[in-house]
């Protein structure tokens, strides 16, 4: 079957295998069909040799976390993320994966009213102890949220979907930190309801294109757009590739991870007493492997905490992967076990993670996870 993969992209893989240890699913299974090299081999078998789409082949594609940890490890720069997204899009279109219930489940993300109503209902259910543990919702969700108000007009502050419903406090902290650096921000709220990252991962790229179009039409084309969720930032930086238009490329060029942006304005923050904490940095995959902007997290945290420590696992994924932790709970849990072991080895007081998915997933395993902006906000207001 034609997966609609670019033959040249597919051919950049020389099957050297250097990606294997950087793949979380290979690490926990030892099974090469769960590795990037294996998955690319299967893409070739399906596309070039018309190999049947067996359950095992589909499982190999479905179990990819799309962390893209293999990309920086690849000396041939295979665009693995694009290959996997295209594979999923083709297979979802043909009805081989992403069943209807999943397609429906992603719909409310683009509708803030519906999402927040649903989220409040979930928060109530949580207090009534009706929410199953395997959903991995570690923290107590808010029933009501204080609206975010603009602090100026220098930049946009992207608020998004699930994160705005569940972790609006992080947005508020980020906006306060920016304000302390003299940067006024406009929360995007309903101007930009959702980035579409989860849709793209599930092979629903058309939904992502629509959401990107809405966002681009609604936002003033002169202002930078700051994002405090690594997954959203990575998706928005990819609109240029996804839509292929000049306008989309220009839009993507205006998207910054908030740590990345703040690192260039650090001198504008007041000097304060650092928090008395030993903090481990957990790099979200889409910040480290996709945006490759993870050094900025260290730059902005260093003046605000007593000690920063690095994990020794080469930035291996934590297993959150957007909806992955719900769709592949077993693998996701095994991957998290490795991450938790790496965290335990450096005995931190807290773990800084700049992505809501990672912090929820690690939080569910009892790891004290906090967004870098919240740490800085605390230090500034101590």
């Amino acid at each position, binding site marked *: 079957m034609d997966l609609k993969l670019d033959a040249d992209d597919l051919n950049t893989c020389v099957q050297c295998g250097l990606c294997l240890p950087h793949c979380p699913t290979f690490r926990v299974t030892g099974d090469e069909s769960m590795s990037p090299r294996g998955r690319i081999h299967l893409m070739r078998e399906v596309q070039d040799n018309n190999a049947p789409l*067996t359950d095992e082949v589909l499982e190999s594609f479905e179990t990819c976390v799309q962390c893209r940890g293999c990309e920086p490890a690849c000396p041939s720069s295979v665009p693995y993320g694009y290959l996997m997204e295209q594979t999923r899009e083709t297979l979802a279109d043909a009805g081989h994966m992403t069943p209807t219930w999943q397609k429906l489940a992603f719909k409310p993300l683009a509708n803030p009213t519906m999402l927040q109503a649903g989220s409040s209902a979930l928060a109530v259910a949580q207090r009534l102890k009706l929410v199953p543990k395997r959903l991995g919702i570690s923290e107590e969700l808010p029933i009501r949220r204080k609206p975010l108000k603009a602090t100026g007009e220098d930049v946009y502050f992207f608020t998004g979907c699930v994160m705005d419903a569940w972790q609006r406090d992080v947005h508020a902290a980020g906006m306060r930190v920016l304000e302390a650096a003299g940067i006024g921000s406009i929360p995007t709220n309903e101007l930009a309801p959702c980035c579409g990252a989860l849709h793209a991962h599930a092979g629903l790229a058309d939904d992502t294109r629509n959401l990107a179009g809405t966002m681009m039409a609604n936002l003033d084309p002169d202002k930078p757009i700051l994002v405090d969720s690594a997954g959203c930032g990575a998706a928005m930086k990819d609109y240029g590739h996804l839509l292929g238009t000049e306008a989309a490329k220009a839009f993507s060029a205006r998207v910054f991870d908030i740590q990345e942006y703040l690192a260039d304005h650090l001198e504008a923050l007041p000097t304060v007493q650092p928090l008395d904490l030993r903090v481990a940095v957990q790099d979200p995959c889409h910040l480290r492997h996709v945006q490759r902007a993870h050094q900025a997290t260290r730059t902005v945290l260093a003046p605000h905490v007593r000690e920063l420590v690095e994990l020794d696992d080469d930035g291996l994924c934590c297993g959150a992967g957007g909806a992955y932790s719900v769709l592949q709970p077993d693998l996701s849990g095994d991957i998290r076990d490795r991450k938790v072991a790496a965290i335990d080895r450096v005995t931190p007081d807290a773990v800084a993670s700049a992505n809501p998915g990672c912090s929820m997933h690690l939080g569910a395993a009892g790891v004290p996870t906090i967004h870098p902006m919240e740490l800085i906000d605390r230090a500034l207001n101590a």
Partner: protein
Amino acid sequence: MSIIERVRRTISGPESSGDPLLDELRAALSEDRVKIDGAQRSLLGKDASVFDGGNSGPICYPTTTDEVVAIMKIAESHDRAVVPRGAGTGLAGGAIPLGAPVVIAVTKMNQILEIDEDNGIAWVEPGVINLDLTRHLTPLGYHFAPDPSSQQVCTIGGNVANNSGGPHCLAYGVTNSHVVALEVVTASGDVLMLGGLDAEPDGYDLRGVFVGSEGTLGITTKVAVRLTRNRPAVRTLLLSFSNTRDAANTVSGVVAAGIVPAAMEVMDQRITVAVENYVNAGYPTDAGAVLLAEVDGPEAGIDIDAERIRQIGLDNNATDVRLAGSEEERAALWKGRKTAFGAVAQIAPDYYLHDTVVPRSKLADVLDEIYEIADRHDVLVMNVFHAGDGNLHPLLIFDGREPGVLDRIHAAGGDIITASLDAGGVLSGEHGIGVEKQKYMDRLFTPDDLDHQNRLRRAFDPVCRANPGKVLPMGHSCADIQQLRSVPAEVWG
């Protein structure tokens, strides 16, 4: 899977596959640790080389020695061959399946069992990744010395099977010098302990026989590796030259001067450009060749050695000599060298990596000859090699979709091997013989030599079920895989 097959499986349940071999393997391990689907079996048909063994038989993921023993006995009772597999990064086809053998994948045997500082060793399982072991040892001040370019992914079991080398083996010796004892399981399921922790174990050195045997004597299930103390000080030099000949002569000059560097690696211009494009380590892309030289040891005296190397380079027309100023710079330079093979896909989608060794004094001449051979066969060659020990790695780059290109690649490869042997070299430095160089074995060994190697192999594996069809050339009994195909190749679908 057809609908009928699907229904049949649903009704009869997974435990009755209809195949006694599969049923017994699953009973001995577990349902989920014996794989049989076509996707996986085609995947394991290849390693990192150009050779394709076709679909493997059942793929087993044991976690204990006892399970390996059980697999061997079950395979024996069904008269099936057995092939071990680590990370599948071999470059000579040593782990590819021939005749649909049972595959023993050791990736789940990945525990570091014990670190014994008193004896200076660590006991590890074969699926431990080389670099993971070194990282685990780092806080204690040790490392595992063999550092193949693939060290971030290759397994200790694979290192043992291929007697792997690496850039730093120039000073420290290859895998054989770093393995003191091995627990192995033979094809008939016997568990043997080879070697030992004594400095000089009694009797024949069967450990030495096993290291580098490429799975043809059995499979290792526990390895006692030597711990090597980390170096107090390191200096890394990057020397640029206008051609590979000057670089090669510098290498000979350094050794002749009595310096023992930790590593000396040469890359020609084509590969340097590809590497620099990936790592941005500051490799000069306008140089005809670069030499990466490293000295290590106590802080006192190390700068003297570095300066002597610099001077020898300048005497051999080095156009630039740079000392890595920081650990980051040093790490970036090594990252470039170690990912060189993978980086070539920027130029063409396929590569064929050779691995011959020539006397150091002949390096420059053989290199010239390799460029001529490539021109003659109209193929693109890049050279990257462990210059210090004369281990050449000519890399032939091509696009496999081009009709007839593989014939030219193989012809050029044959000429390169001939040129290396004619210069007094050997067939393989570290990648092994596998299926790649069997047909050249009789150029290096007499029939008598080969006959004795064959007898040695049979002492461990009388019926030739351990990785058959590898190493020994066709015509020798264990190489003749046709005999072993007691089941048709298509039996697994």
